């Protein structure tokens, strides 16, 4: 493709993604596409029970089956001293006691604690042989009582899941000033309280998790190809905590990854077992989850039960907020599980509002369900749902326009310190709300409602004003609240002798478009074409270290690191250019791929400067050859994207069917690198948010069986469930990173669920309505009150 003006590829350019060519033409290179010689196939034997004691495992028949190379259980794992998986974020209870983390063995040894809990692995020459043999592993279980529901897990008679955590309680944590909150409530003119459930979700990446593990016995070296959002973190945990191999003997490669949404951040049993089995059995071991395994074993998201109370003064200004949440973490603590319902949830409970007193209490509990961890938004959607349902319900009780109630309470001065840790650097919530309301023709809604009524339809409108915190966070601050890792990012910029550039980043792209956006930063700075830039990521042998991609961090943190490294490259290249052009450095500028001496016609191409750096025939005195710089960037603060969403629906009162008529989003993401990619992120996020609000509900029965274990019962959003979204952006650049970027990857999933539920509740004239608002739920909600008369 010929780019007429290189400047068009810089920051803000709406250009097609470089990586799409390979994805769209089926030439992506995913983990399961990687073939190694003499590979064998692993199939896991999983518990069919939610809770059971393993009395006996007999592998004899499986071992004797055709093609079988080995059958391994938790006993062998323990023999080889493979450690337990860990949760890397220490959360302490209000009383100061540390969270009660029980061991998470990669293969269950004595007790299985959820349906799908792996307890043995069969490795065979073919996948089908391994599956056949897995059915021959004979296990005697003593079935134990199970609990799946978070609200029931702390009951006196609930089954005890881990000895380490009495009453299945992992921690009882709190945040905020309890005394201030308690002082606010008695003085309040109005108190609005509400119970709500944030439904559990299954992540459903298109590409299932996969691993290919290779052990080189001559070098004592492991290679793991795997579906990871953060291969360096995988290596760190497998090395330092699980004890598979020291870091320099373990290479982790995350090639193309087909969607993560958080579920591929974590260090899971299956990948760990493949590595260990490769060494123990002396063969490369491959595993790719089938869809049922994905449902059973990918870390789920959300699953909160909450009681919230909001106190208002006589002018409907919020004076206090009290939130009590029980968070279901599943049967074991996944890698970051502890942080999601605490530091990624309660810290956002101020939303876009000036709330003087907030106090949140969170109990995290074990249940006999699949582990729960971060899923797109991670904590922030749950906080937004609490606040935005409360605001809408309050407005209706007060007889106020929900937009007006929000305006009365918006934060208008920045920086703003909330009572729950966060310090918002900048924002303009009025601007996003105005933009959304105007685009949604909010003022004319009543006419549309009246018209719908003539067709026998109930029309409703709902708002949601969300805030999120991205680019987590200064490492020191994260460390002080229990994070086990730093949250900076690294970058290296390698200029090749002929002037092309390789950007090495510790971020990982699994749909975000880094190969394009990171190159756009180079285009912006150096005026080079993005075709002259390649982005290298996802391989611990190539990139020294990094924290990966999650929490909408790659732009704000990863690109800031690249920016720092580019500054260093530019500075050195400029010195060389000045030297070659015999000019003062201060007179030299870099533009459109050329260094020039200001006010003269002297110029030299960037590529020639690069070549000069490597020939080293004529460099400034004392300068080292080469042109390569690295940088680490540690953010000064979170970034705070925010926005306003408006959803408009029609309900068929006869059937309970809901149709989304219009969905309008106005977001403030700060500086946009590529507006087209940003819009794609918003569209995808809204689709997932609508999925949570109307379609997706992960259901366990009372015995802990996963009822929604396939697409027969778990409803993924389809194109026909959605409308064409109206999206726009306003801009207050982030003040704490060099690029002004806030992040956009999760916003849609955070902001949209309450807008949808508020709209349906408005249509029905009800307050009580839980997600997912399926036709049956809507129908039941309608019949829980007198029906608004819909004209025939």
């Amino acid at each position, binding site marked *: 493709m010929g780019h007429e003006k290189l400047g068009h590829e810089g920051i803000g350019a709406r250009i097609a993604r470089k990586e799409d060519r390979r994805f769209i033409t089926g030439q992506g290179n995913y983990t399961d596409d990687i073939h190694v010689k003499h590979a064998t196939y692993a199939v896991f034997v999983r518990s069919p029970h939610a809770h059971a004691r393993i009395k006996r495992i007999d592998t004899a028949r499986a071992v004797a089956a055709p093609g079988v190379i080995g059958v391994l259980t938790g006993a062998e794992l323990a023999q080889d001293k493979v450690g337990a998986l860990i949760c890397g974020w220490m959360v302490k209870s209000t009383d100061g006691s540390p969270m009660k983390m029980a061991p998470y063995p990669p293969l269950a040894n004595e007790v299985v604690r959820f349906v799908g809990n792996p307890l043995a692995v069969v490795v065979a020459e073919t996948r*089908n042989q391994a*599956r*056949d043999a897995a*059915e021959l592993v004979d296990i005697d279980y003593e079935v134990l009582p199970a609990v799946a529901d978070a609200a029931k897990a702390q009951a006196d008679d609930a089954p005890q899941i881990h000895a380490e955590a009495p009453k299945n309680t992992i921690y009882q944590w709190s945040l905020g000033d309890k005394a201030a909150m308690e002082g606010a409530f008695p003085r309040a003119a109005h108190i609005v309280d509400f119970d709500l459930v944030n439904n559990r979700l299954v992540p459903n990446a298109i590409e299932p998790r996969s691993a290919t593990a290779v052990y080189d016995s001559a070098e004592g070296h492991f290679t793991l190809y795997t579906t990871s959002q953060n291969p360096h973190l995988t290596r760190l945990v497998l090395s330092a905590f699980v004890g598979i191999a020291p870091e320099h003997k373990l290479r982790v490669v995350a090639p193309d990854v087909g969607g993560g949404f958080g579920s591929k951040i974590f260090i899971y049993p299956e990948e760990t077992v493949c590595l260990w089995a490769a060494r123990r059995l002396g063969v490369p071991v491959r595993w790719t989850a089938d869809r*049922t395994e994905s449902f059973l074993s990918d870390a789920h998201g959300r699953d909160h039960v909450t009681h919230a109370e909001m106190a208002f003064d006589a002018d409907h200004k919020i004076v206090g907020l009290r939130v009590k949440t029980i968070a279901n973490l599943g049967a074991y603590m996944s890698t970051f599980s502890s942080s999601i319902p605490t530091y990624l949830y309660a810290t956002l409970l101020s939303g876009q509002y000036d709330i003087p007193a907030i106090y949140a209490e969170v109990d995290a509990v074990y249940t006999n369900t699949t582990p729960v961890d971060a899923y797109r938004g991670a904590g922030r959607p749950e906080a937004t749902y609490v606040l935005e349902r409360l605001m809408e319900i309050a407005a209706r009780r007060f007889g106020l326009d929900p937009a007006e109630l929000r305006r009365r309470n918006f934060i208008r001065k920045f920086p703003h310190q909330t009572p729950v840790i966060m310090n918002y650097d900048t924002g303009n919530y009025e601007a996003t709300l105005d933009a959304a309301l105007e685009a949604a023709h909010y003022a004319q809604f009543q006419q549309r409602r009246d018209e719908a009524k003539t067709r026998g339809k109930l029309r409703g409108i709902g708002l949601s004003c969300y805030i999120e915190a991205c680019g987590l966070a200064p490492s020191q601050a994260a460390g002080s609240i229990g994070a086990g890792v730093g949250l900076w990012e690294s970058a290296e910029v390698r200029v090749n002798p002929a002037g092309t550039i390789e950007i090495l980043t510790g971020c990982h792209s699994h749909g975000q478009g880094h190969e394009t956006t990171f190159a756009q930063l180079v285009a912006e700075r150096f005026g080079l074409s993005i075709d002259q830039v390649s982005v290298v990521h996802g391989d611990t042998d190539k990139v020294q270290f990094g924290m990966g991609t999650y929490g909408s961090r790659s732009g704000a943190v990863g690109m800031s690191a690249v920016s720092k490294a580019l500054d260093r490259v530019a500075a050195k290249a400029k010195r060389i250019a000045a030297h070659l052009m015999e000019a003062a450095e201060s007179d030299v500028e870099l533009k459109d791929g050329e260094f020039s001496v200001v006010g003269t016609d002297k110029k030299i191409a960037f590529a020639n400067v690069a070549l000069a750096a490597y020939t080293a025939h004529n460099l400034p005195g004392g300068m080292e050859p080469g042109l390569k710089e690295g940088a680490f960037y540690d953010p000064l603060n979170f970034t705070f994207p925010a926005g306003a969403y408006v959803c408009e629906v029609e309900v068929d009162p*006869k*059937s*309970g*069917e809901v149709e989304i008529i219009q969905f309008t989003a106005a977001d403030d993401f700060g500086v946009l690198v590529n507006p087209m990619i940003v819009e794609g992120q918003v569209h995808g996020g809204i689709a997932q948010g609508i999925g949570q609000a109307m*379609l997706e*509900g992960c*259901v366990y029965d009372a015995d802990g069986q996963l*009822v*929604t274990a396939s*697409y*027969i*019962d*778990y*409803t*993924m959003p389809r194109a026909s469930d959605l409308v064409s979204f109206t999206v726009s952006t306003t801009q207050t650049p982030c003040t704490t990173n060099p690029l002004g970027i806030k992040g956009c990857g999760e916003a849609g999933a955070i902001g949209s669920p309450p807008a949808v539920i508020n709209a349906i509740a408005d249509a029905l004239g009800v307050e009580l309505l839980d997600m997912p608002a*399926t*036709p*049956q739920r809507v*129908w*039941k909600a309608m019949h829980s009150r007198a029906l608004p008369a819909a004209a025939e």
Partner: protein
Amino acid sequence: MYETTYIRASTLAQAQQLLHDHPEGQLLAGGQTLVSIMKLRLTRPSHVIDIGHLSELDGISVEGSHLILGAGTRHADVATNEQVRGRIPGLAQLAQVIGDPAVRHMGTIGGSIANNDPAADYPAAVLGLRATVHTSHRAIAADDFFTGLFETALQPGEIITRVAFPIPRRSGYAKFPQPASRFALVGVFVAELMDGSVRVAVTGAGSHVFRASGIETALQSSFSVAAAEQVTVSAEDLNSDIHASPEYRAHLIPVFAGRAVAAALQSASG
């Protein structure tokens, strides 16, 4: 899937012989159920006998007062065929809402009704139109064909060859898809036959397709949306799952009967 032996039959007679020789074998037509459950290892046929391509089972034709569909006719062909759309628009409407395009281009009517999934669409048309199911052995009236959950009157070794639908005065189908699977949570086929009798067949709501006699009576006196909607259907014996309680299904049956009537009225006037 478990290992099996695949045999592509070249004639109907050979397929029958193979079924006889391999009592643990199963017929494969469009494979839209069989292949899925084989992949999940829920069934283990010794042999898979492919009849999906047999010309003897192919074809859409009009013979006198009947529309004939070969058992191997794909849903997509029924949905788009001009004879079907002209003679029995309700049948084309039904075929158009089965599964997704991939399913419609592979799945066959014979496979669907032989499987008799309680939430499949086709049984509603077969029963609602009072069709006759022709097999390698005999002809079976629709009222006798669907006998229970995944159960039919078919005997071992018997192969459906074609289905003969009486061309009605008017007919329509309305389906409330189960949100996840898009099978019928409730699907209602309404037909007014040439003799003036009205038949209403409901799929998705019970153990197998059944006739809603209350709605039939109401429509017999007034073939209108309002007449259908006024009927109250009992929730007794209706299916219950996470997507719909028996009460919700009972509520939906007259609502969707009304929509089926609306569709029938519209296609008859169009």
